[in-house]
């Protein structure tokens, strides 16, 4: 585990939580997520009138004695979901900022743990360039999970990442069977919104987790600075910029950031996706027990 972010105590607390997924997901057989379909669990759900071809073993004879009609007992179905976690491993996510990268990893790990704890499948997709890579395969069970996490800790954050290309090209994206989480700072020129649209098309539940550092939320530097973007190729890269940061400039930054985040929020609301912004200097417990609980993705 990276640092002190994830420890046994934290995981033991996570065990009290579960991912709240939409009930209209189909998922896979044998999970813990209650879906709005009838299944083979022992939990009574509803009665239904007998139709020709139904299994007669499911006729509720008590109802028959009462109503002299044949009714079937229906039971809830619990399904297993697939949780896809896309982790943005571009340079902006932490090439120069270990805190941000470890926080992003921890967030992804925490969500992955919750998934496997709820007996769901988890896949970790490392987004780099235009492709996402899943070196761990589908993870089921905690043993495989912790094995994957120890590798995930050592992932390198470098280059850039086209979220849209990475998500849409991922072969593991099934339809209507789970949650897709994208962990990124979403500070990219690429049209990541298409990725969300894709996922919505795939009828997946979408959660966007934006990880920012304190400096990104409220830059502490000012004056004449030559800002070198971590994803820039060289000094002359157009991503770099010379700027004189004044008070007004800082105000403009704040406004631009707020508007950008609001824009993301509005977009997600329209798509039914969840969006959370977390600061890397905030305790991860607060994120999980706070922000994620707020949006209803946890219970």
């Amino acid at each position, binding site marked *: 585990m990276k640092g002190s972010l994830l420890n046994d105590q934290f995981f033991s607390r996570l065990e009290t939580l579960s991912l709240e997924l939409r009930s209209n997901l189909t998922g896979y057989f044998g999970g813990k997520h209650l879906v709005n379909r009838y299944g083979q669990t022992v939990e009574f759900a509803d009665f239904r009138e007998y139709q020709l071809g139904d299994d007669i073993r499911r006729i509720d004879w008590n109802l028959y004695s009462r109503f002299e009609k044949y009714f079937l007992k229906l039971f809830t179905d619990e399904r297993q979901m697939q949780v896809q976690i896309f982790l943005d491993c571009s*340079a*902006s*996510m*932490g*090439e*120069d*900022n270990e805190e*941000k990268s470890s926080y992003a990893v921890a967030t992804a790990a925490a969500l992955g743990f919750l998934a496997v704890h709820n007996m769901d499948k988890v896949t970790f997709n490392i987004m780099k360039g235009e492709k996402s890579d899943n070196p761990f395969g589908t993870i089921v069970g905690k043993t495989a999970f912790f094995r994957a996490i120890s590798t995930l800790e050592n992932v390198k954050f470098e280059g850039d990442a086209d979220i849209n290309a990475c998500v849409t090209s991922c072969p593991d994206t099934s339809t209507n069977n789970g949650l897709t989480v994208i962990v990124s*700072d979403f*500070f*990219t*020129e690429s049209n990541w919104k298409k990725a969300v649209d894709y996922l919505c098309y795939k009828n997946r539940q979408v959660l966007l987790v934006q990880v920012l*550092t304190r*400096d*990104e939320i409220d*830059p502490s*530097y000012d*004056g*004449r*600075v*030559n*800002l*070198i*973007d*971590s*994803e820039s190729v060289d000094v002359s890269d157009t*991503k*770099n*910029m*010379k*700027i*004189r940061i*004044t*008070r*007004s*400039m800082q105000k*403009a*930054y704040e*406004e*631009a*950031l707020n*508007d*950008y985040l609001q824009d993301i929020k509005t977009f997600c609301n329209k798509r039914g996706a969840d969006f959370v912004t977390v600061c890397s200097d905030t305790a991860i417990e607060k994120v999980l027990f706070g922000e994620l609980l707020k949006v209803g993705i946890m219970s």
Partner: protein
Amino acid sequence: MKLLAPLGLLGLISILILIFIYIIKPNYQQKRISTTFVWKLSLQYKKKKIPLSKLRNILLIICQVLILIAASLILSQPNRVLKVDQARSEVVAILDSSASMLTEDADEVTRYERALTEVKNQADSVLAKEDGLFSLIVANEAPYFLIERVTNKYTGLESELETIEDSCSYASSDIETAVLMCEDILLDNSHAQIVIITDKTYDSLPEGITVIDVKDEEEYNVGILDASAYYDDICNTFTITVGYYGNSTKTVHLNLNIPEANPSDSSSENGVEIDLNQEIYFPGSMTKTIIFKYFSEDEMPEEAGPNDEIVYYPIGDNEKVYRYKSAIITLTDEAGYSDFDSFVLDNTFQLYGGLKPVIKVVYASALPNPFVPAAIQNLKNKVYKDVWDIQLTEIKMGGEVPTEGYDLYIFEDAWQGTTALPSVVPDKLPQDGAVILLNPLKAPTNGGFHIDKYLSLGNNLQYIYRDTEVDHVLLENVYPDDIGITRYNRIDSYDSYETLMYFDEDPVFMIKNDGADKIAVLNFSVHFSNIALTSSWPHLIKNIYDYFFPTTVTSNAFEINESVILNSRGEQLLITGTNLENGIEFKTFPAEYQFTAYGTYEITQTTYYGVQLTDKVFVRIPRAESDIYAAEASIESPYKETKISDFYQNLLLYFAIALVTILFIEWLLHIREEA
């Protein structure tokens, strides 16, 4: 607004330097961040802001530019130019340096000395002030600035005044010109005071002019204003004008002393002394004319009253003066002292010209006519009655023609009909006098001309002409166009003659005046011409006479600084006398000279014919200076423009206040920027 030091605006170059600094100044520190995405977004946000915010961003540089502008303007010394009538303490003293200022009071202190004391007082008074200016104009006949606009820092005032302590002139003063000389000072400082320190009184004075009168009421003057003598048919009559200027009555004695009256000739010492005295009573300030004249018994004038302005003093038979070398006129008091009054320079007068120089004229003619003698007699009895003693000798027909012993020879040849009478022209012209040849039928050997033949022009007068481009003194009042001839002697060659009248391109009147060679040739006869009947004839003879015998001086009495025209009958002329111990020589004539000192001068010359001539002149104080209580009407006001000079209201304070204010604003902005 005016900038007293516009070069200070060069400080605006600092703005360029400031801009250059802003351009090159940026020293960007490198900062590696995760992403510039949001910063790029914020730039767009900045661009959307209203222009005033943009202005706010460059407010600091605007402040700095304003600071530099204010500093540059301060260096340029901004001043608001106002027009102010600049008043400054200034005195221009005009010191009257005329002869009347030599009038002494009872303590023998002259007015001039009192005036100098007053000049010092004026100087001390104005120079005691911090911004005081003092000037001194010495007003003699040609006023000049002795001291011009000095301040109290000037240390040479005393020494300058010492240089003029004994410089009071004997002439008049030109106060008017001295006042006008103050114009430049008045243009610069219209409040300058002009102080005239004088003994004259003015009826009215323009504004800004003050007169300090240095007269003493006890002073008085009796002076000889003028004296002259003229010879009537009997003897000389002496006319003396005496003026008294004072506050009480006065009795003085006038003495006319002729030490050598009636000498036989000018070089003789055998004259007799004639002394005439007259007591003159003045009831008050007035002028009296005393006339010493011979009266016959039936012409005796009445005794003059005390208030009569003309007093006749009949002289006796033994007091007649026919000729005199000099006459000394003196005013004295009862005790016989001539320095009894306050102004002594006009108490004596010397009269010269009592001996008229003799000019001997001989007229020899082959056929004497009355025209020539008449012309000479006209000069003798009328024109030069009081100037020359012209003695005419007429040689009768056939008589011996003199060739020496005369000053002027007139030789006239003649025809009788068509027959030429024997020529009276000598073979060799006289060497001791001037010659006039009238109708010469032969050319003398030393005449310098040749006669070709005589020409008869018929019975009708043929008129002669002159060279209109030549304006000669000999042709003054002579009109050749009116002169007609019927016959003339044609001169075909002539040497060193100046031709003045012509007939048919032949000379008919020519003149030579080359040192001792003084020859006038009129080569036509008065008998065969109408010249003697025209007004030109006496004028021509007079002009020839004046040309050959110019008077040395036009008078024997002049005022100081009066221009005197000098002529000589020789090569040079020497003047000796007061202030001219070594004499002054003249070689070009007519010459002009001004006598600057009072007294008697002797003018000597040797004629071309070796005759030594001496003339005496008396130079006196100007008549106007004898009136020591003279009053003038007014003085012309000098041009006085109220000098509106520039007053500079310094704006430095305001610009400095603005500068400090802008500096304060810039400091505030800087703090906000840093915050």
